[in-house]
């Protein structure tokens, strides 16, 4: 089975994010990290590929930078990576991203595309579904448990009130929630091996995509800071802070 895992290099979430005031694009440093939520997708792909007859390919779209984030995911055990890095893609929206990822998945002959439910930096939360539609495959979304079932997959899909058991044949797309599996930590051997694993860097013309066709009909008219919440009273606990909490709960009329 050919498994493609969508991964994303993002600015370190511990640092404040910024938009370029001119272009309104997110400022991306050279040194980006692997989106933490992607580790779940990589892990489930590695587990599904454990039959020995499968390939796990990381697929990604972002300025390549120093590729640190991609190497983090390769160090977990993925076989190779394909990253699409093209100035024409700066500021790309979710659907453009989906077109690029779908084109890479096709190029790789993926039987299964795996993704997290949403990225940490942009969190539009719809790219995987768009990719599934573009590929014409079912989307097994919000999986909290995944297993092979015959020639396809069976998942437990998180719902608002519980979960559904859902099955689909391949090719298919899968999105996984945090907690679906415990992602492995890269071993020293894995980190060393990642340094020499193949990373293909492509432009959109390599994929046969046309930048003009990816233009969208929306204009940003304003970017502004959200109104901030006023900070309130801070007390040090000296053994009686719980009484202050009780008073606030009374004031809020919940007790």
């Amino acid at each position, binding site marked *: 089975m050919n498994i493609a895992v969508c991964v994303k290099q993002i600015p370190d979430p511990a640092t404040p994010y910024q938009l370029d005031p001119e272009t309104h694009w997110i400022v991306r440093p050279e040194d980006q990290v692997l989106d933490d939520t992607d580790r779940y997708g990589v892990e489930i792909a590695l587990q599904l590929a454990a039959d020995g007859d499968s390939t796990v390919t990381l697929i990604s779209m972002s300025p390549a930078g120093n590729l640190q984030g991609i190497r983090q995911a390769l160090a977990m055990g993925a076989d190779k990576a394909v990253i699409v890095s093209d100035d024409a893609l700066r500021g790309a929206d979710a659907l453009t991203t989906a077109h690029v990822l779908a084109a890479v998945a096709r190029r790789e002959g993926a039987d299964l595309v795996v993704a997290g439910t949403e990225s940490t930096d942009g969190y539009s939360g719809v790219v995987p579904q768009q990719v599934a539609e573009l590929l014409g495959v079912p989307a097994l979304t919000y999986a909290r448990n995944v297993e092979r079932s015959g020639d396809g997959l069976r998942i437990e899909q998180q719902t608002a009130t519980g979960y559904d058991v859902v099955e689909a044949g391949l090719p298919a797309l899968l999105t996984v929630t945090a*907690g679906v599996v415990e992602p492995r930590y890269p071993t020293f051997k894995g980190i060393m091996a990642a340094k020499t694993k193949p990373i293909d860097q492509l432009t959109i013309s390599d994929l046969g995509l046309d930048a003009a066709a990816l233009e969208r009909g929306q204009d940003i008219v304003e970017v502004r800071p959200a109104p901030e919440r006023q900070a309130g009273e801070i007390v040090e606990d000296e053994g009686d802070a719980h009484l202050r909490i009780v008073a606030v709960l009374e004031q809020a009329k919940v007790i």
Partner: protein
Amino acid sequence: MAGIWVFIEGSQDGPSTIGLELLTKARGLGDDIAAVYLGSGEADAATILGDHGASRVFHMAPGEQLPAAGAAAGLADLIAAHDPAIVMFGMSYTDRDVAGRLSARLGRSLLSNAIDVSIDDDGVHVINEIFGGTTLVETVTATHPALVVFRPKSFTAEGGVGTTPSVETVALPDVGHAGAARVIERHEEAATGPKLEEAAVIVSGGRGMGNADNFALVEELAGLLGGAAGATRAIVDSGWVPYSLQVGQTGKTVKPDVYIACGISGAMQHLVGMKDSGTIIAINKDAEAPIFGVADLGVVGDVNQVMPKLIEALRARS
């Protein structure tokens, strides 16, 4: 004036809460308001949808298949026939699946994390939250239809309109392999107490609780206050509690009267899901924790000292 459409998923409890929130907002955007209702019990649902302002209902009945692919194709056909100005979705599981597929099918962008919308001669203006809700972006979409996914609780649902909508049933088109995922079983998980999204009081725990066992304090306090227990991504990822308890960017958005954050530092990813709560109380050892920036009452202290005393004090009152 072109139509204002709201996609609404139904469950055994009727139309989704977020669907009714969006329908309420739709009333202020135009006169021709349609609900695209995916679910069963359409007669009862239509009454509720009409009471929230829908003048017509397009009803889609889900079958054994996961409905998103078929619903997106059905919606695309309806849009081609009726040319609405906007289709509104909620940031919920099924809505996101349908909206994403529809966007790709139509080749039109989708705006996520919207919190407000207005329509004027320039087009559909949408305000989106980015960067954990710290920054707002306003976009205008000049051509039909704008596809927009809204964060829950951006608007308050209000019924009382009393419209009797027309109901038109729409068959889900056959989309072949894309629609072939089958639902084999459905499981409702018995929840004690109110739902996280609807609770008036939420007590959430983070890494500062120390370990999974200490999360019992969070549940106990939530129970005493008639509220629900929530969690940060950090402890969901650590396997202490299930994903369904997660509050934040990748979890649920909540807006209770009172939110008590216990051992939560207040990462951006968490704040986006709870910063609009009525009163925020935070207990954390680290006086520099960002959660104190949004707290009405911040207690700098050890949760495992403060919470047992708080629980005891509340028990003594009851």
